[in-house]
């Protein structure tokens, strides 16, 4: 576990990504210490531009945008992590089960996965959320969690299938290891990178989708979240009256965490597939190899 972390941190992209995400986590935990104002209180005049008193200005209701942003971080991170966990748990279970047992089980599970994959996700979520009325962040996490596992199931299945043909798996099977041990001890650890990739990707997806659902008016407008901020700003015609801070602040928060998480994912991918690396020594080695090849070819031609 320790060496895994070390490999992860040695990758520059992963390290930068992780630091960005950690900043968000600290902000979420220390929110009451960082925010100077009550995020839902009327603490200034409407639509004040950013100033020393209100670092990111105020909303039409006279609420402090910076404080809202800080408290919104809690919400978005929690929903992201919870939904990410659900998505990964369902996707991994279905993917490995399908790959390991094969046959009829695989047919059924794979069919299910493919059907879910071709259904339009956002409209589906919208229908669910609309029937539930104004949904709480927890409900958003749940409905995203139970509808978004298909992609993860598909990639996990593919990876597990290729794993199944390895010698060590077939050897353990011949020794007569029980199915649970095969899955949990032999296969799962070797699927960690794909599971991690899936988890981080799902967190990004959830944060984006939560913001979208709330922006479209399906969340509760009293929630403190980046999506609710966008919704309220849109309702207050913030763009048209030129209150850019009200829009750009939550946008920035979403973009940066997205970048941080995807850098982490890029790192995971590069560790799992060294061929994908683009920077540093690999590039140098590649260039050298190509030059050598060309030289050899020229020599051979002469």
């Amino acid at each position, binding site marked *: 576990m320790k060496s895994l972390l070390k490999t992860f941190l040695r990758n520059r*992209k992963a390290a930068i990504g992780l630091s960005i995400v950690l900043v968000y986590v600290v902000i979420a935990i220390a929110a009451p210490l960082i925010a100077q104002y009550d995020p839902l209180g009327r603490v200034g005049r409407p639509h004040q531009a950013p100033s020393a008193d209100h670092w990111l200005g105020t909303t039409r209701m006279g609420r402090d945008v910076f404080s809202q942003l800080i408290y919104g971080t809690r919400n978005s991170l929690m929903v992201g992590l919870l939904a990410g966990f659900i998505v990964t748990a369902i996707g991994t279970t279905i993917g490995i089960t399908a790959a390991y047992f094969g046959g009829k089980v695989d047919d059924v599970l794979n069919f299910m996965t*493919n*059907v879910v*994959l*071709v*259904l*339009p*996700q*956002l*409209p*589906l979520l*919208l*229908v*669910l959320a*609309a*029937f539930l*009325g104004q949904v709480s962040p927890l409900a958003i996490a749940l409905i995203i969690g139970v509808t978004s596992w298909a*992609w993860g199931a598909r990639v996990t299945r593919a990876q597990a299938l290729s794993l199944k043909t390895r010698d060590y798996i077939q050897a353990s099977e011949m020794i007569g290891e029980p199915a649970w041990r095969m899955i949990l001890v032999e296969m799962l650890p070797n699927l960690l990178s794909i599971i991690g990739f899936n988890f981080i990707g799902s967190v*990004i997806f959830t944060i*984006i*989708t939560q*913001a*979208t659902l709330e*922006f*479209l*008016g*399906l969340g509760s407008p009293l929630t403190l979240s980046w999506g609710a901020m*966008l919704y309220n700003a*849109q309702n207050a015609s913030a*763009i*048209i009256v*030129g209150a*850019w801070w009200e*829009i*750009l602040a939550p*946008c920035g928060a*979403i*973009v940066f965490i*997205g*970048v941080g*998480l*995807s*850098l982490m*994912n*890029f790192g995971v991918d590069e560790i799992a597939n060294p*061929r*994908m690396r*683009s*920077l540093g020594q*690999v*590039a*140098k080695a*590649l*260039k050298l190899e190509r030059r050598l*090849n060309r030289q050899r*070819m020229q020599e051979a031609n002469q």
Partner: protein
Amino acid sequence: MNFLLKRLAFYLVAFLVAATFNFVIPRMLPGNPADIMLANANVAMGPAAREALMATFGFVDAPLHEQYFSYLKSIFTWDFGVSVKFFPVPVTDMLMQALPWTLFLTGAALLVSFSVGTLLGILAAWRRGTMIDVIASPTALALQSIPSVVVALCGLYFLGVSNKVFPTSYAFDPKLDPAWSFEFIASVAYHGFLPVLTLSMVLVGGYLVTMRNNMIGQLGEDYIYMGEAKGLSDARVRYTYAARNALLPSVTSLALSFGALFGGSLVTEVVFNYPGVGNLLYLGIVGRDFPLIQGQLLIMTLAMLIANFAVDLAYVFLDPRLKRA
């Protein structure tokens, strides 16, 4: 041929699942669904509307399976009920009016982002480790993690409101009458530019990264070295050898990206007040117009499935082995 028939059967099942979903969800709510829907709707409604609403969701006096079949029958006869908010306009009429705009928007964005993303991906893989790769690949990845709401709102603010370069709403100048005139088409292009641009921005990253990774996989193959050894030009090896084969998995991921495409267009239309299905859906959500909301899910599903089928066709063309399979 067999392959395509199988796919068609699969899409039929997928559509049935979406329809069943629409049928089941309102029945899982406690109490009388029609009353809940009416209570949630932010408009006053007469008994006629209530009646129509009940009929839309198949709430007829009959056992459950008969309700289901009568519901399916109305779906397959292209009858999605009448709108509650714009009573008594049929939902299909409203959707059909909006659909061309959404198709125009998604089609244009798909064309732009897929070609730009794929080309850049080819170059990034070919010149791996050089400037283009080091800049383009992480940027693409970052773009992928930015939601379309953010891109659209920023585009609207910077190019529509603070610098009035592009219009901020509608699909064409309302003063013009729709016609195949140069003026009208120019107006449509002008109004469509910003929505298409934002939608493409969201999508381009995914195509770039996929193509780059596929390309890198191909570049290590023997046939590439053979092409080079034969003395073919770089461009020929790059495009007709490596890219043609790398395109195959890229097309598969194209199908997977349709969800993001349609989801993105939903949001983009709302932000730019573009008269497509997404904007209609937004009106439906604001007014809790359930027939409209479920109608758009069915339409979107249908669009997704047709798009997927088009990818299947492209796949057969790109991979001739499938024709024989």
